[in-house]
């Protein structure tokens, strides 16, 4: 019984230490961080249009599209597709995505389409594309927005985040930031 009494009291004390004091300390530290620990938002005309780190759905042809998402960019229920490469349904789905992409982007060959535009991310909330995943969409956007492709390529260049310290990891482009900058550069024609 002595063991259980010791266990019980120690448990209560450690709950205070690990589950109350420790998270409170981090809550305090988070107040000093960008976004005050509540998630960094991006705004336009004073209205919050999204979270910097979270991908969102872009389907309209005038925007750079994000990756496919198994949860349709539901930021309250993240998940991947969990489809196996051998699954015939999955293979058909990827083929259909490719067909759709080629239809929306006339003139683009299958070999130019990066696989990320046809595959769902792990979280369903991937905010990024690789530079190639963006550049392959430039011709479509240029045509629909009536802006020179060269200008768009410069924009993509400017929005590309290079690897960490220029050395480690992949280069990437945040699709939400890119599309916000795109609206600045070449506003949607009404």
């Amino acid at each position, binding site marked *: 019984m*002595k*063991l*259980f*009494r010791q*266990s*019980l*009291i*120690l448990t209560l004390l*450690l709950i205070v*230490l*690990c589950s109350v004091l420790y*998270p409170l300390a*981090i*809550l305090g530290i*988070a107040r000093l961080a960008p*976004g*005050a*620990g509540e*998630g960094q938002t991006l705004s336009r005309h004073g209205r919050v*249009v*999204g*979270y*910097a*780190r*979270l991908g*969102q759905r*872009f389907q309209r042809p005038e*925007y750079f599209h994000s990756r496919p998402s198994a949860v349709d960019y539901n930021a*309250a*229920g*993240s*998940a991947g*597709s969990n*489809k*196996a*490469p*051998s*699954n*015939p349904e*999955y293979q058909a789905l990827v083929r259909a995505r490719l067909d759709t992409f080629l239809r929306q982007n006339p003139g683009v060959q299958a*070999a*130019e*389409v*990066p*696989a*990320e535009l*046809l*595959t*769902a*991310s*792990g*979280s369903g909330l991937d905010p990024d594309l*690789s530079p190639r*995943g963006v550049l392959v969409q430039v011709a479509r956007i240029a045509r629909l927005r009536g802006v020179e492709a060269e200008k768009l390529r410069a924009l993509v260049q400017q929005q590309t985040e290079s690897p*960490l310290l220029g050395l*480690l*990891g992949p280069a*990437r482009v945040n699709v939400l930031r890119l*599309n916000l900058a795109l*609206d600045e550069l070449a506003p949607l024609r009404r």
Partner: protein
Amino acid sequence: MTSQYLGVAVLFAFAVLTAVPLGRYIARVFQGQRTWTDFLAPLENLLYRLSGIDPAKQMSWKQHLLALLSINLVWFVYAFALLFTQGALPLNPDGNPSQSADLAWNTAVSFLVNCNIQHYSGETGATYLTQLVVLMFLQFVTAATGIAALAVVFEALRQRTTEQLGNFWFFFVRSITRLLLPLCLLVATILVFSGTPNTLQGKAQCISVEGDTVNVSRGPVAAFVAIKELGTNGGGFMGANGAHPLENPTYFTNLVETWAHLIIPFAVVFALGFYLQRRRLGWMIFGTMTVGFLMLLGPTLYYETHGSPALSSLGVDQSLGALEGKEIRFGAVASAFWGISSTIISVGSVNSMHDSWMPVSGAMAQLGMMINAFYGGCGVGVLNFLVYLIIAVFIAGLMVGRTPEFLGKKVEAAEVKIAILIALLHPFLILAGTALATYGYNHDPAGLSGWLANPGAHGFSEMLYEYTSAAANNGSGFEGLGDNTPWWNVSIGVVLLLARYLPIIGPVAIAGLLARKKLVPESAGTLRTDTGTFAVMILAVIWIIAALAFFPALTLGPLAEHFAL
């Protein structure tokens, strides 16, 4: 790709460089020597005094296990009660419901045993209260339990004859105050400054650029993620775990989080060397583990970076590798590295979805958990390795015709029997569980169609992976498995309990039995255990026991899928 490879190479080197001094520190902490964290002594003394504990009282190995099991029982009752009633308790801004009895059983057991298999999704299946005071609490104390058990073994392997193996509470409390909490403060601080939220506010709402209404789950994520990785727990705050952009927002945080799950398992191997004053033995064990790790990592890197064969007929650009279930900010290399390190280390957190990995990579992840001794979870990894080591000592002794000895103690029938039983328990739990589930599924494939997300060999792999993950106390999954059903909740819970406590009891008992034996002075006739030859011997034993036991099952699952692709 070069920058991606460079990223993980730098990470691994950094982890080894930091693990050596941390190992020295851990050895000093458990021996009660002076360290720079001695300013925490008053806090620890307060904990001991209020709990009525005398941290100087010496315990035998049986008393250690009794203390360990008692406090674990208290945690189980506490965790189950809160998860089962969380819907009615405070700190639930999103109004999430209570867990069903079988789900609460599964969740309580799974976090109690440091596994963190999750049959619920963080955003909807837990409340801020249970995330903090149940799940995160267990992430601290169960990691400390494993480390404390290892400290008992360190104490027992010191070369002397004794029954007095230190005090369990002393090892346990110090694991938290001197190791886990300081490291968590560091990692959580880095995370909040890198964009991981940490708040008690509920969901946020906004209207997206295209006009969709978006609800964004948040919470005390950074605090949670820090101990999730450092304690080799792996249970995510969010459903998508380390793939979620709020849990793991950048390539940099990905490096930090990978480091966080490598560091303690690395460091305790070196701690063994410092504690026993046999640094060569520490390096031998670390080297053996690293060779095993690289053997699993190699094929995984190859298949994940070469793209999916299923997509090659479409002729699309797969230069960045197979990307289903992966995040662009990490890329294929860092995803493969995390996945293999997290499965061999029994973290079980994921930053890509293993269910969508190429079949051979999935087999490597499963093999890592089937072996379960390359680095391994906080404390328990070295305990598992010790089991293989004892068997290797025994076999090597027989081969060269010498009495098997380890660290100056004769290894005799009782120790070898325990080691073999523990080594065989693991395949038994995995294969028996998978066999039962497969049998059930085949009797009612229509009624149980919700179980499997993928047909054929891969469906079998999903079931095999789940039991493997449970028996290895890993916690990752082929998440296509529809696992929140009474069968999975209950059966996985049973496997988890057996696979946690027996592999702790076994090695502690072996060490306790060795400790009381007479010391045999080392001589020219002693079989040396800190050499390259012996490392090869251990790898051979691991290969024979683990790999051969599981090869038939892996053939039916991932290998069949690989050759059919």
